[in-house]
């Protein structure tokens, strides 16, 4: 029977018992010596493996090495002067395929300056239960504020604890990761502080 694409299909729906089992090899007759030899051969493999180095890692006492690009839990980064990098632009939230990031922005004032520009994230939350660790948020961020770190052990005891708040996300990255990110050269340098008071007319500055 050929379908519209010209492929033949076997019309028999199911196999019957014993069907499809390969036939026993002809020739060699079963013998005791043959069985013992087969047993010894198997044991030889087992014994030779026994003396080879162990590859099992004793997790959780021991950990396997992580790739540099491993995508684990998120961190929000800060500039060297302590100001938050995040400008509350919501581009991470827009890029996130599962919609697990909530950003609510607010305006920086001279009294309360959180980030260098005009805008900062008043609320920043990631729902880790929904996150698929795709890293699109990191890619979308124009100021390299949100990054995925190496930690993957995120178990906890309640669903609420998986909503990572800004406070939790602002915990410092492991120093080696931070150093690597800075060394990559993609880091935006700490922006120059705004002149105070800001200029009224036009002023030329190098970007």
């Amino acid at each position, binding site marked *: 029977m050929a379908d519209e694409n010209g492929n033949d299909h076997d019309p028999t729906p199911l196999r019957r018992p014993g069907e499809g089992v390969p036939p026993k090899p002809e020739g060699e007759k079963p013998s005791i010596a043959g069985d013992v030899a087969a047993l010894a051969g198997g044991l030889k493999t087992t014994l030779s493996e026994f003396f080879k180095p162990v590859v099992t890692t004793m997790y959780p006492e021991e950990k396997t090495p992580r790739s540099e690009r491993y995508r684990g839990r998120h961190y929000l980064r800060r500039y060297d002067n302590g100001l938050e990098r995040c*400008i*509350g*632009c*919501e*581009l991470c939230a*827009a890029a996130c395929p599962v919609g697990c990031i909530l950003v*609510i*922005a*607010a*305006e920086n004032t001279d009294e309360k300056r959180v980030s260098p*520009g*005009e*805008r900062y994230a008043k609320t920043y939350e990631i729902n880790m239960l929904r996150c698929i660790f795709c890293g699109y948020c990191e890619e979308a961020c*124009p*100021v390299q504020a949100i990054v995925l770190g190496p930690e993957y052990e995120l178990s906890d005891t309640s669903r609420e604890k998986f909503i990572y708040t800004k406070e939790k996300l602002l915990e410092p990255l492991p120093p080696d990761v931070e150093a690597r990110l800075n060394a990559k050269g993609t880091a935006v340098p700490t922006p120059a502080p705004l002149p105070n*008071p*800001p*200029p*009224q*007319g*036009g*002023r*030329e*500055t*190098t*970007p």
Partner: protein
Amino acid sequence: MPDVKMVNVTIDGHVVTVPDGTLVVEAAKLVGIEIPVFCYHHKLDPVGACRMCLVEISPGPPVAQAGCIRPVADGMVVKTQSAMAVQARADILEFELVNHPLDCPVCDKGGECPLQDFTFRHGYPTSRIDGPRLHFQKPIPLSPNIALDRERCVLCYRCTRYYDEVAWEQELTVAERGVHSVIASQFDQPLTSNFSGNIIDLCPVGALTSRLWRFESRPWDLHHTPSVCSKCAVGCNVTLWQRRGQLVRVTSRENDDIDEGWICDRGRFDYTDVNDPARLRVPAVHGSKTTWAVALNTVADGIKGKGSKLGISLPQDLTNEEAFLFRRLLDGPLRGAKVKMHGRTALPAPSGEQLMIKDIDDARVIIIVASDTENDVPIVNLRVKKAVSKRGAKLIVIHPDAVDLDRHRETVHIRNQPGEAAAEVRKLADHELLHEPGGPVAILYGDGRGSEDAAGLVAACTELAAKVGAKLMPLYRGTNERGSLELGVAGWDSLDGVEALLSWGPPPTAGVPASVKFHAVWDHLPRPEHQNASVVLPATSFAERQGSYTNLEGRVQFLRPAVDAEAPLKESWDVLCELAAALGLPLDYVGIFPIQREAAKAFPALAALAQPPSPEPEPVPVLMGPARP
């Protein structure tokens, strides 16, 4: 309508037949071809300032020409995709971006910004600019509601032209010249016009943004709902933008029959009460929270059988549906109650054929009597300005004080003694402007905020209209005053001496009378007047309300809820039905549609209620693809 010559033009191979005088950009829109524009706006006179709209036009010189100032001609061939036109537009965009900060991530326009879109569709994919850029203070407050970012301005002059042509104000100008030009308010004073907010919608970039919406959200976070403004009787169409249960922005929604895409600042910025954390949400009796059933029974006991000892204060923005239910209460258990509506003019319900707002455009002479149109009916005021400055209508104003329409040099302003407007109207019949008006005459009359004898004024205006063949428009102030008048609930009684008072909406303007023993309040915000109220019921705000308003020209328009009325908040038709039941009048409606159908049957003026239009706005035609060098 004079006969207009039709001409054929070919745009990128599509032949389109349009009236002579149509601009090339408008003709291209008809065949779905995008010619990018910054300075051109279909409601403003073209100026050709930005050169974003460059296209190749033949016959003509072999240079790219601005499509926004060029009217079509018969046999014209327009090429928007020729190599010359495509490169010319990309070059213009490159110039636009020389000093542009490109801080899209923190720009409130980002996501709905024509400059972003055009750069993607018509610009060069990469930038060659690495020189220094011009910087300014960010942002400069232009008024408590509007922020100006000069770095982002593309100097299209839409804002200043709007101020000049449409609003007749001189508050916003261009300071300096040439490359140093910047937008500035006059003498750096804050903008005070009631029409200032429209420049936010007009600005094609993020140079003018709302300070109320500043950094509230990105445009793509928002859910938008087409609705109607609830602040005055004009009934401008608006879009309500909601994020996470908060009303975060109100913008205009163009309806050429009413608002032409403008709304006043009251409609645009007066919405923060919706998100007030102090909003009333739970019914309370004598200050302690309770259930709706208990609260409504207490109200019913307090107001039942009081006859004329019961006073009811109505909000100006009650919907037709609420008014219809309320009418049934007034005909039944609350018969004889004194009713006073907020913001009501003394004008009676209109009779006969009325002037529609869009007819003001074609009027040759416009007479405005006893109304401060700028504040009472703001968008009608803009229509009058358009008829006068763009269509050459003559304007006669009868008002005791200076009004903003005086700014036109040819306005005839007759200053009457307060109360004497009717006499001045009678004298007008012999006015020289009305001898040979050369077209329709429009008479718009208010009630002078109570200073005029309304009946006399209406009679005088009707008489004048009959003499000169004019059409009349009563200028109501209350949002749904006209609908309430047609339903017979727009009372104008004094509430003095009542023993029980139901204040629906804000407290009575004259204050709570001292004689009141039982005071029930149905409001959305706590107010000092609620201090001694026996019962406080939470009400929905305009953003949570369903229903319809009848605007001052009699058009029925539908409000749609942008924010959910979350329990225990109840929709007002529901509350009215339950109150009626507690008063012994069974009103059994399962939803708002049966109420609308019944009201449409009972009141011919509300016939439109039976067919609410689909809430989905018509889809915008897809524009043809990108043209990038």
